């Protein structure tokens, strides 16, 4: 269900990082002989557009600039040149377990992550039952997270973030290695349904992942980034095949 509204527009974006040797300790900054940092070209002249309802997949090796590009679009990082415009409510997520604290209970973590994702306390309160039932952890609601097994924690993390993502109902979703069906077979099938609902909800989505099957399954188009530049772009099957031919 692709709309004609242009939600993401990236024009000639470039980004370099200055890489210094040694730490950024105060004495190093003043007295280090290594004054000239190395320049890492993270992105060079990137152009792309994503419409509402469209899912754009981005693939590439580690260090190819995928996360840097998403962070620039999400407003976490500034580009050196060019413009990246995200028109609408934007949600950027990288990884899963950020924000949860093992020393807090499940309930307290739900409030903590919900607040980090910008929800009000009463909105969070209204989601607790759905989150905890989806994760199948009702009897552990007031137990500290470190007492759960790693599988339970994965289910909790997935459930918290997906319920809050759905509730936030963003126009733009920037997902960096976030989507993977978690837990046991029963939970995997539930979480796959949830992922599909989220991706087909009408938001403009950029998916970054090393899971090529996931990219193939959900993306309308794919961009292949290599050393900070767009190497190829086009239909998912075609680009993924080319990528596989080179990297396998």
């Amino acid at each position, binding site marked *: 269900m692709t709309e004609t509204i242009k939600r993401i527009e990236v024009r000639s974006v470039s980004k370099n*990082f*200055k890489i210094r040797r040694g*730490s*950024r*300790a*105060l004495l190093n*900054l003043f007295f280090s002989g290594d004054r000239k940092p190395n320049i890492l070209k993270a992105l060079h002249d990137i152009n792309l557009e994503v419409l509402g309802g469209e899912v754009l997949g981005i693939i590439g090796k580690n260090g190819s600039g995928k996360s840097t590009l998403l*962070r620039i679009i*999400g*407003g*976490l*990082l*500034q580009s050196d040149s060019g413009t990246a415009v995200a028109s609408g409510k*934007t*949600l*950027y*997520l*990288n*990884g899963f377990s*950020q*924000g949860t*604290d093992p*020393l*807090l*209970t499940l309930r*307290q973590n739900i*409030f*903590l992550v919900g*607040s*980090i*994702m*910008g929800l*009000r*306390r009463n909105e969070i309160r209204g989601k607790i039952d759905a989150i905890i039932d989806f994760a199948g952890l009702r009897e552990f609601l007031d137990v*500290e997270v470190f007492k759960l097994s790693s599988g339970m924690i994965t289910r909790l993390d997935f459930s918290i973030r997906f319920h809050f993502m759905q509730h936030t109902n963003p126009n733009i979703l920037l997902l960096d290695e976030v989507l993977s069906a978690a837990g046991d077979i029963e939970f995997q099938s539930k979480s796959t349904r949830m992922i599909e609902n989220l991706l087909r909800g009408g938001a403009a989505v950029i998916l970054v992942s090393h899971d090529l099957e996931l990219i193939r399954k959900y993306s309308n188009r794919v961009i292949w980034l290599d050393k900070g530049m767009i190497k190829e772009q086009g239909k998912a099957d075609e680009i993924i095949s080319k990528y596989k031919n080179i990297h396998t």
Partner: protein
Amino acid sequence: MPKTRSLLSTLRLGFTLAEARFRIRNAGSYLGIFWYLLEPLVFFIIIILIQGNLGIKPIENYQAYVLLGLIMVNFFVNAMTGAIRSIRDNRYLVKSINLDLEALPLSVVIQFCFSHFFEFLLFIIFILYYHSFSWTIIFYPLIFIVFAIFMIGLAFIAASLGAFIEDFDNIWIVFSRVLWLATPIFYALTPGTFLYKINLFNPLYYLINIGRQIVIYDSFPGFTPILTTLVLSFATFGLGRGIFARSKKKFIEFL
């Protein structure tokens, strides 16, 4: 209107993060509040015990004078230490979601406002026991709000420096020890001395003096000290916000 909404959401997140850290430090128990009180109590007992050996000239209501000075400086030092680490300690969060970064140093100040509340309760119990209760104590929250505004401004500056300079907290630890000794916590300043002149540039000196006058000595400070403190607090807040707003987009590159 959007600015007000954004300020409210930053405050909300700041409170939630502060509450979470407060719970973690208290190990989920109300008895955990004892740990907040332990440090000022131990220092207080040591100072009272060695007072005779320090050659300090007599100060009226000395116990209350020391305890109030200790808890105010404790708030300042702890909030600064936490603020310096607030961005680096949350580096994974900063890199993984677009959140209001202002909430990180803000939450540290709020967390130590909670602990200051309990320390001040301890102080009230103390002066009820040793000293006649003064009605002017009701004005202390106003002084503390001004103190907290000053502290939030400094926390923004400290958080920015802590994000860019890896060992800034080590520098601060040394500086805070000097500040602790140079600020008149357990002694009074004699006008004209070197230490007195130095303290004229120490904002903590003004804030503690005003606090003591109101809470212990039943008197109100003059117009000039109040105006100076107000201007200083709001100017620090504005400066801190400006510095943080300019530097926050670069944090992620240094973490």
